[in-house]
């Protein structure tokens, strides 16, 4: 059981690492939001489910409640994170920032 939890946790960490590296590697503001906002959601899903599984292991009612609360974190982040990303993108559009495009498209 501990092995399964470790594997899930490692998957989540890979997604988080990918998100951080993506923020540096992608070319402009808008495309940087893709890894920033959304690889995080997958990373959170994996790491939080690992935490929930780990918490519930010596099974008791209070442990179950704690893991349900951890799952609720994921639910609320999944509702708020797209809204937050949309707000950031909208702010960028309103400020007049042009999205980066490949030079072949601009011709």
């Amino acid at each position, binding site marked *: 059981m501990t092995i399964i939890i470790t594997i899930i946790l490692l998957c989540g960490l890979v997604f988080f690492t990918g998100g951080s590296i993506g923020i540096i590697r992608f070319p402009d503001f808008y495309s940087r939001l893709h890894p920033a906002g959304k*690889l995080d959601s997958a990373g959170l899903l994996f790491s939080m489910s690992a935490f929930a599984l780990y918490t519930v292991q010596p099974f008791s009612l*209070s442990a179950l409640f704690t893991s349900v609360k951890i799952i609720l974190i994921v639910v609320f982040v999944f509702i708020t994170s*797209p809204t937050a*990303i*949309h707000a950031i993108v*909208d702010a960028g559009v309103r400020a007049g920032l042009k*999205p980066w*495009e*490949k030079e072949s*498209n601009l011709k």
Partner: protein
Amino acid sequence: MDAASNSNSVKNIRSDKNPYQPSENRPTKKFAPVPFLLTFIIMACFWLLFSGRFDLFHLSLGAASCLIVSALSSRLLFPEALPPGLFKCWFKFALYLPWLFYQIFLANLHVLYLTFHPRMMDLINPKIIKFDSRLKGDVSRTTFANSITLTPGTITVYAGIMGTFAVHCIDDKSGQSLPGEMEKKIAKVFDE
């Protein structure tokens, strides 16, 4: 539920010509028992979950605060009289979620692949595409916009009240499937 109440307040602001004047379809100040009871039950569930204590003192505190909250703001959670088929809608939405999670997972893998690819700049092709959605309701459009943003590779830039969507997508493959299957599934959920 949060999205539902949000989009409803947006609708109210936009449908009125002057938001400071009371509109005709303003909720009446009559006591509505069913929304009150539902709010109380939901609040009580959350209280039990978050407190985790079942002695008389904490339970009575919870009951009192749930009563106050549901008396003051049951109209916030259920703005109008309960629309018919609400629970069926929730049930169908729950059926929609696994597919959405599968899509999120697939698309996350795709963005992860792009991130670690050595020749990433050749693969990506960021652009903004515009399309018209045929979804009518506010809640369904909100769900659609949030689903687009959740599936990586695509971010909703603009979702208009007339059903126009602008989506920023990271490469050609991410943008191809829009609006497509996701819109169909949401239309099925909300009976449109």
